[in-house]
């Protein structure tokens, strides 16, 4: 049987069109015995690199192409309700295959041209231009004109003259023009011909073939593949509907059957015979058609190294690095960049010259730092020479100079910048100013970063202030030019929530139900949806779990799982920027991003494979927060602090860290880290490095923390495996924590170089290589006089270490902002909080940070129309400093309104604000409710007691009257009260808002409470129940049972050693944070309450883990509002207020309520039995939310979606969050 080569295959990287993964396409081709296969995604080459790599792995030759639409402007429809997204309107399309390196340049440019110029360009002219630029006798572009091309559609409509003219214009481009026939055996005989005909029918294919013959045009057969197996056909229907932003219907799906799958050679020959029969051709013609297909396929096979560029290295030219005058290219010229290629000799000369420049710069830095005439300078020079030798050998000097140039550029902009990653281990990086840390001070080695045994470019990450990140991008583009710089892209792929939403929308299900279903899941893979419904207690016990058990969700979930991992959108990578020489735009297609920067189609892994210099410029909010804090210090205290010059031995800073009051500090604010620093009590900068390294999933999972702490606290003697290893392990008390330690152990025991030892370390990360490494390690170690027993023990440690441990250089780079943020908190707390609250760098909500500020003695000042600025600012309060809430925090206020207020302040009264600042009435009302006018109009909580005092409600009336006065042009006859310019707001007798109303308004409008803490309203309840407060936790004993209560600020489900799910809860009870862990035994009955309530009462058992180390193992939790209701109800007896009755009622309530979902199964069964599309009323068992005896009505939709019959009415009494005010890790639902 003859082979068939598929020339037209779309993968999932044809966004929301194809359902196959590129790797699977290559694998399937190999399974079917095919020697070559094409990937021709729609307007994208994002899947090209992984496809080429998969082809190599499967011994299949890759063919690359791209499908380009010939869009007519009037066919494009933007959908306003989807944010202006352009819906697919089935434009005409051509498929372009690359032949050789010139062909790759061609399809890169063509794809960029499509994205750069959108719908207003002429593809034919562009193809001609590209062919003229790049094509050679053997290399260039092959254009397939298929059933969806302009020619194909003209043929389908029997407009043969038009088809002839169109074909002639294509031939005039100089590209290789081939007609493509496709048959999906569509129902041409059953459906009347439409304007476009049925392009995938056998008859249409035969007609296209006949036309090609009449024009003497070569013809190929393809199957326009969209999926690998017919079973995936339904998934493509969902993708069609999603792409077109419409529900599924016959007119909105592209396929009429499941024939667009990856067929075998035999199946394709059958298709060829059917088309031949329908077109009146001979069987031999069918064989010839397949032979021609294979011929054009083999001509288009590319070499992944030579043509695609895998394995090559490209950095900017030296003259570009050294010469700051570079031009900026506009988006319209992305695809037109001239790319004079440099010869190998030129590149070699440049490399040598770059070596010289690099050496000169490092020498200058040594001199500038005074490191030339000391004992240590000899060590430094030796280290420098070693690094130079490696850099010279690899030819990477230009790389270092480029990164240094970017860092220098950033500093010149006044933006805080810090290096992170293994690059901190390079002395050259330190001398160039890339890294603040001196690696020689912290025992960091270069080999972890750069090794002569690896030829790929190393990775240096740069942290900059988050709010200036795009400014830095712009500067890099301006400095190097858009022909050498592009942003890295990333693929947003389907996970469970998006998959549920898209399947639900495609099926036309109610959005509310679909949204509730999606949010019920944590952020997991779509393929794990069914398993999650079975295993997670909060899902298993929900209505959706009940539906899943009946099998009713099977087909829905099958579609959800079918979408798993498929790309949804291409997006700007949050930090990756790639730099290259002038050949950049010939080697990657680019398209615009939301931020207007050209973005490569390749992701971070692809650009590394392709040898681009990838620089991760990460926007770090903590850097912004620290920068803001420094500005505030200078503004309020007149002190200019150079944070990078602060010595790493400040006592106050370490005392703060040891006290565990580290909320807001970089890397050490999470519950786990606060517990760890409490046990560890870091005393030096290196301790912080160890602390950060220990608090990683690996060390935690492999229980490296306990032996370290035991040795550190002197509870057990450290074990060093062998005396010769003691110098390596001394700093970590015998525990292997760092990659660098593994490298040194291997080098010490085997005598190999550090570079070779790093390769061994990398090998340990792969199970497959363990035997190889072991086979080498044992004899080498035994030769160097280590006993077999020692070698066994070390090997066990190394093997266990494989996926654990952390790069010390990386931890060191992290430790710098950790220390700096703690230093700011210790010495300038008000400025620190202002920075943290303005830039929100951590995991906790602002309301917790504000509470922490109060705990640290920093007053929090409310919103004030005269004093507030856009951000949180430091303000003098008596003899101290406080933080003033920023105007930007107000819900709904625009930047223009903020600017107007700040620039017009101060104001004399509310009329003055109304007249001089351009503020809308809703914003004025929100300012009133949030208390921004309280000081101006002497409103306070005490005003409530004074009969004739002005209240916030009076001001609201006044704002309404001002609006009326303005709309009536100053006529006063229709006004209730006198208002207008110059008139003082009247005290109408409306009462001032009470404390609860104020807090509710603050939460709703500012997202944080200012006047009171939420828990203030629960004080009597907490006192009655004997709730333990955070400030008193240190006085508790191990194994003591306690009740704690507070506002939820975070739930996290990090990986733990047992492999089970543990939910870590953080509460804020107004005296500090409280952390509790819910193990699996406590999750079943309480997970739903835990995830879906805002204020919680938690029962738990204390475990003391050190002088300041306390953990609480939770044994139950209840919604605090519900408990409060039970308490209030029971306390109100005929004889008066009876606290003991309330206590008893709460104990009974806690005993009776183990979960709030008791009614659900019953409700769902009722709903299902009704066979109704409308929700039915179910009864919730007594003691639910309200805790009132009797039944509470709940609307239960058939899908299990629950809704209160009073859903539009806020529950009376309690204070509820207007939006989510707590942190949830990806493992948390909701």
């Amino acid at each position: 049987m003859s082979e068939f080569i598929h020339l037209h295959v779309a993968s999932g990287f044809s966004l929301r069109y194809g359902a196959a993964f590129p790797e699977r396409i290559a694998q399937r081709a190999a399974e079917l015995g095919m020697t070559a296969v094409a990937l021709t995604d729609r307007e994208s080459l994002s899947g090209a690199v992984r496809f080429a790599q998969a082809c190599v792995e499967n011994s299949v030759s890759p063919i690359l192409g791209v499908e380009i639409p010939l869009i007519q402007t009037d066919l494009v429809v933007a959908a306003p309700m989807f944010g202006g997204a352009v819906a697919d309107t089935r434009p005409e399309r051509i498929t372009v295959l690359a032949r050789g390196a010139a062909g790759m340049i061609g399809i890169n440019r063509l794809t960029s041209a499509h994205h750069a110029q959108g719908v207003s360009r002429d593809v034919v002219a562009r193809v001609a231009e590209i062919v003229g630029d790049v094509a050679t006798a053997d290399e260039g572009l092959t254009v397939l004109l298929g059933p969806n091309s302009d020619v194909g559609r003209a043929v389908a409509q029997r407009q043969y003259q038009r088809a002839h003219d169109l074909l002639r214009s294509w031939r005039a481009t100089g590209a290789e023009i081939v007609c493509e026939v496709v048959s999906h055996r569509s129902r041409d005989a059953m459906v009347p011909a439409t304007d476009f005909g049925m392009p995938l029918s056998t008859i249409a294919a035969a007609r296209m073939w006949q036309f090609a013959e009449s024009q003497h045009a070569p013809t190929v057969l393809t199957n326009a593949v969209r999926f690998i197996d017919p079973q995936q056909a339904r998934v493509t229907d969902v993708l069609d509907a999603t792409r077109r932003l419409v529900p599924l219907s016959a007119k909105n799906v592209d396929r009429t059957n499941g024939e667009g799958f990856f067929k075998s050679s035999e199946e394709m020959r059958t298709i060829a015979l059917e088309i031949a029969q329908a077109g009146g051709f001979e069987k031999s013609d069918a064989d010839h058609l397949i032979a021609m297909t294979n011929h054009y396929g083999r001509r288009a096979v590319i070499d992944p190294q030579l043509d695609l560029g895998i394995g090559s290295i490209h950095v900017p030219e030296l003259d570009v690095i050294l010469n700051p005058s570079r031009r900026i290219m506009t988006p319209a010229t992305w695809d037109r960049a001239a790319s004079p290629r440099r010869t190998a000799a030129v590149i070699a000369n440049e490399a040598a010259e770059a070596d010289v420049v690099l050496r000169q710069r490092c020498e200058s830095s040594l001199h500038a730092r005074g490191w030339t005439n000391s004992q240590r300078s000899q060590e430094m020079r030796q280290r420098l020479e070693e690094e130079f030798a490696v850099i010279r050998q690899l030819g990477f000097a230009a790389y270092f100079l480029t990164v240094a140039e970017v860092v220098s550029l950033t500093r010149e902009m006044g933006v805080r910048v810090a290096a992170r990653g293994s690059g901190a281990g390079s002395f050259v990086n330190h001398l160039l100013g890339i890294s603040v840390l001196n690696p020689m001070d912290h025992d960091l080695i270069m080999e972890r970063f750069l090794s002569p045994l690896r030829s790929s470019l190393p990775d240096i990450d740069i942290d900059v202030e988050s709010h200036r990140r795009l400014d830095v991008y712009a500067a890099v583009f301006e400095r190097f030019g858009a022909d050498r710089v592009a942003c890295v892209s990333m693929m947003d792929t389907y996970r469970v929530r998006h998959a549920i939403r898209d399947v639900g929308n495609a099926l036309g299900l109610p959005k509310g139900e679909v949204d509730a279903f999606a949010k019920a899941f944590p952020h997991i893979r779509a393929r794990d949806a069914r398993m999650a419904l079975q295993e997670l207690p909060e899902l298993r016990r929900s209505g959706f779990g009940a539906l899943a058990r009946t099998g009713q969700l099977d087909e829905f979930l099958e579609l959800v799982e079918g979408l798993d991992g498929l790309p949804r959108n291409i997006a700007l990578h949050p930090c990756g920027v790639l730099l290259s020489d002038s050949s950049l735009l010939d080697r990657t297609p680019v398209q615009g991003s939301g931020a207007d920067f050209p973005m490569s189609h390749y992701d971070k892994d692809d650009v590394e494979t392709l040898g681009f210099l990838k620089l991760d410029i990460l926007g770090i909010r903590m850097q912004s927060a620290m920068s803001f804090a420094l500005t505030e210090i200078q503004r309020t205290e007149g002190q200019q602090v150079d944070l990078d010059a602060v010595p790493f031995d400040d006592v106050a800073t370490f005392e703060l860290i040891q006290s565990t009051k580290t909320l807001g500090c970089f890397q050490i604010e999470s519950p786990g880290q606060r517990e760890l620093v409490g046990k560890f009590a870091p005393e030096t900068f290196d301790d912080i490095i160890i602390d950060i390294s220990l608090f990683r999933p690996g060390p935690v999972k492999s229980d490296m923390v306990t032996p370290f702490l035991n040795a550190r606290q002197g509870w057990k003697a450290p074990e060093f495996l062998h005396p010769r290893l003691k110098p390596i392990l001394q700093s970590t008390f015998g525990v292997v924590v760092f990659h660098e330690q593994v490298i040194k152990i291997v080098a010490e025991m085997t005598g190999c170089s550090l570079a070779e030892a790093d390769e061994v370390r990398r090998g340990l990360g792969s199970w497959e290589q363990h035997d190889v490494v072991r086979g080498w390690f044992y004899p080498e170690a035994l030769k160097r006089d280590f006993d077999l027993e020692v070698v066994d023990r070390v090997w066990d440690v190394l093997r266990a270490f494989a996926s654990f441990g952390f790069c010390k250089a990386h931890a060191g780079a992290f430790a710098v902002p950790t220390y700096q943020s703690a230093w700011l908190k210790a010495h300038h707390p008000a400025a620190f909080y202002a920075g943290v609250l303005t830039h929100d760098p951590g995991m906790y909500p602002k309301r917790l940070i504000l509470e922490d500020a109060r705990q640290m003695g920093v007053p929090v000042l409310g919103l004030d129309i005269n004093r507030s600025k856009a951000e949180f600012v430091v303000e003098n309060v008596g003899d101290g400093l406080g933080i003033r809430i920023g105007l930007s925090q107000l819900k709904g206020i625009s930047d223009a309104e903020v600017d107007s207020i700040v620039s017009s302040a101060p104001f004399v009264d509310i009329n003055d604000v109304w007249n001089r600042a351009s503020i809308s009435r809703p914003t004025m009302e929100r300012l009133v409710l949030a208390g921004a006018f309280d000081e101006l109009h002497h409103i306070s909580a005490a005003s409530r007691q004074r009969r004739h005092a002005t209240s916030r409600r009076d001001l609201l009336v006044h704002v309404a009257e001002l609006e009326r006065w303005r709309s009536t042009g100053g006529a006063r006859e229709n006004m209730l009260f006198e208002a207008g310019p110059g008139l003082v707001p009247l005290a109408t007798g409306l009462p001032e808002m009470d404390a609860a109303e104020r807090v509710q308004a603050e939460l709703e409008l500012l997202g944080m409470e200012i006047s009171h803490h939420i828990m203030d309203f629960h004080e009597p309840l907490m006192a009655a129940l004997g709730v333990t407060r955070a400030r008193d936790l240190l006085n508790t004993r191990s194994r003591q049972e306690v009740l704690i209560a507070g506002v939820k600020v975070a739930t996290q489900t990090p990986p733990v050693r047992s492999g089970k799910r543990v939910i870590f809860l953080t509460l804020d009870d107004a005296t500090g944070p409280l952390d509790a862990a819910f193990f699996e035994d406590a999750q079943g009955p309480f997970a739903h309450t835990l995830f879906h309530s805002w204020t919680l009462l938690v029962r738990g058992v204390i475990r003391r883990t050190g002088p300041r180390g306390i953990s609480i193992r939770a044994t139950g939790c209840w919604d605090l509002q519900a408990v409060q209701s039970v308490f209030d109800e029971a306390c109100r007896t005929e004889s008066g207020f009876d606290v003991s009755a309330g206590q008893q009622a709460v104990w009974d309530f806690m005993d009776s309520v183990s979960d709030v979902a008791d009614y659900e199964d019953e409700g769902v069964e009722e709903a299902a039995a009704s066979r109704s599309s409308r929700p039915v009323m179910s009864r919730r068992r007594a003691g639910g939310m309200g805790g009132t005896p009797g039944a509470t009505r709940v609307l239960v939709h058939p899908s299990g979606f629950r809704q209160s019959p009073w859903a539009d009415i806020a529950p009376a009494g309690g204070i509820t969050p207007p939006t989510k005010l707590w942190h949830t890790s990806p493992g948390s639902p909701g």
Partner: protein
Amino acid sequence: MSKNVFQRPDSLELHMIDRDGIPESFRWHDHRYVVQRIVMHWVESGPWWQNLSRSFFTGEFADADAGDVTWHIWRVEAQSMGGILLADVAQRVSLFSSSSDPWRMIRVLD
């Protein structure tokens, strides 16, 4: 002219002899027809989503097979003692099970 008989599928089951899914001969109106020529062959899928949407919304249990409606349709020229017949015969195939459905006559073309 053609006569569409697809609306009454229950009464139009065919006793078909096929080879590898390709029709060879069948009985129709008491005559045995032998397929002389395959004029055309195509495949159709039904609107599976209608069934699924309805079942999810109303709480009815979804019938996985009911949504799986893929038909292979063959336009054949067949001859019997009584003359030549041009007809579309079809067989439903399941993507999710290996069992084969009976053949049906869906259209007779004059």
